């Protein structure tokens, strides 16, 4: 019986590995679809000499385009893993290892606020943690609640206008008349 050389490599479960950028774009599209466009996922890319940074925001088009940041991911150019993830609402651990200031600078974060994903699996694990976290859910629900509230107010105003010709009260600061 011939000797079989042992396979010392880690398990490459799939060859279709995606970059953090691709995964974030996918999740942004899923959120937009899931909320019927009320909330839009927006991924912004920033590159500098050595790094790429991607920020996932959620925008409420029906609420003055209010934008909230969900997370940021940063990695070396052409080397998506390992990847640094910052999500203030979620990561407050002090277990993160020390890191080159250049990494931190792109995200603007303290070490307690980030996690380090060495592989795609780990990145997805952290991403799931962030996207399904109570803090994130609370932020999304707040945005939806304000949209719904405004819709109600509009309906109320339409009703009042039909009855008395009045609109909703202004929330603006008034300047004195021009001199």
């Amino acid at each position: 019986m011939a000797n079989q050389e042992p396979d010392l490599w880690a398990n490459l479960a799939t060859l279709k590995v995606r970059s953090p950028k691709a995964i974030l774009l996918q999740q942004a599209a899923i959120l937009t679809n899931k909320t019927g466009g009320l909330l839009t996922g927006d991924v912004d890319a920033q590159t500098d000499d050595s790094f790429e940074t991607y920020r996932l925001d959620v925008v409420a088009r029906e609420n003055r385009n209010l934008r909230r940041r969900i997370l940021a991911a940063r990695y070396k150019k052409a080397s998506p893993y390992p990847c640094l993830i910052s999500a203030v609402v979620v990561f407050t651990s002090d277990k993160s290892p020390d890191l080159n200031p250049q990494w931190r600078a792109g995200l603007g974060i303290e070490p307690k606020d980030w996690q380090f994903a060495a592989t795609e699996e780990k990145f997805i694990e952290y991403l799931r943690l962030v996207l399904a976290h109570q803090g994130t859910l609370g932020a999304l629900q707040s945005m939806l609640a304000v949209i719904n509230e405004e819709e109600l107010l509009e309906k109320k105003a339409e009703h009042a206008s039909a009855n008395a010709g009045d609109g909703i009260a202004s929330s603006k600061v008034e300047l004195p008349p021009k001199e």
Partner: protein
Amino acid sequence: MLPHDKPKLSFLFWNLRGGDSDTLQRCIGRLAQIGTNVFIFAECQIPRETMVRVLNGGSTSGLHRAVPCINNRLHFYSNLPLISWFDRSLSDGDGRFIAQELTVEGIGNILIFAAHFRSATNLNENARAIFVRGAARDIVKIERDAGHERSLLVGDLNLNPFDSGLTDTDALHAVMTKELAVSARTHSIRKEFSLFYNPMWAYFGDHRLAGTAEKLSRPGGTYFYPNTGDPANTFWKVYDQLLLRPSIMNCLRNLEILTSVGADSLVTPSGRPRSDKISDHLPLFFELDFRGLSNG
């Protein structure tokens, strides 16, 4: 209505460096009494309840109140109705950057960005500039969301006006004259990038009062770095800055680096910030007159 009889808004930005002395509080209170509308503080250790009392002359029921913001590293107070503010801040990093949109009747909306960017203590200039580039992108995104560029940025940027984080097209892209703030946009390599006008270029070094040989009208910068062991040290820095988009730069009426408030001096006899008693930064005070702006 605004709480004074002129169609102007006045602002004060001050890095307090954790100070809470009686002198400091007296200065802040006095600035509120003379009608300053918006106060933005960095490194503020004074609890919000105390600050509200200071701003309202000892009362907790005055017009000055803390403006709610999802980022709390900078403290924001105003005597304008709270309902006129809309928090557009992004909860990115550690809350060093805030965005508030103010609605003004007959004028439209104004975006007020405030920042306390990373200190030179831990990061070199290039690393600090990377962070500023991220904030510059956020400013553009928020302006797009808001649908206008009537914006200003004020804060302790921990960079000088000539550093790359301030001047590069993909950073804050802030230029030193009003004329450039308009004309540079026509340059092919700059046309994709909105510009800021940075009036702080004029605030370096000695500036003597007209007709006098000795008397200085203002300090050499906003922050003094006394490291005598650093051969490249410029000593005075203009880290505390106000930048304005061209659409509102002509609204600027007054911009001062304060060295005294009433009888209280903020500087030593040699003209440097009283870092031991008050703060190692001097405050920026400015006024904007919106009458020239069109509605929309």
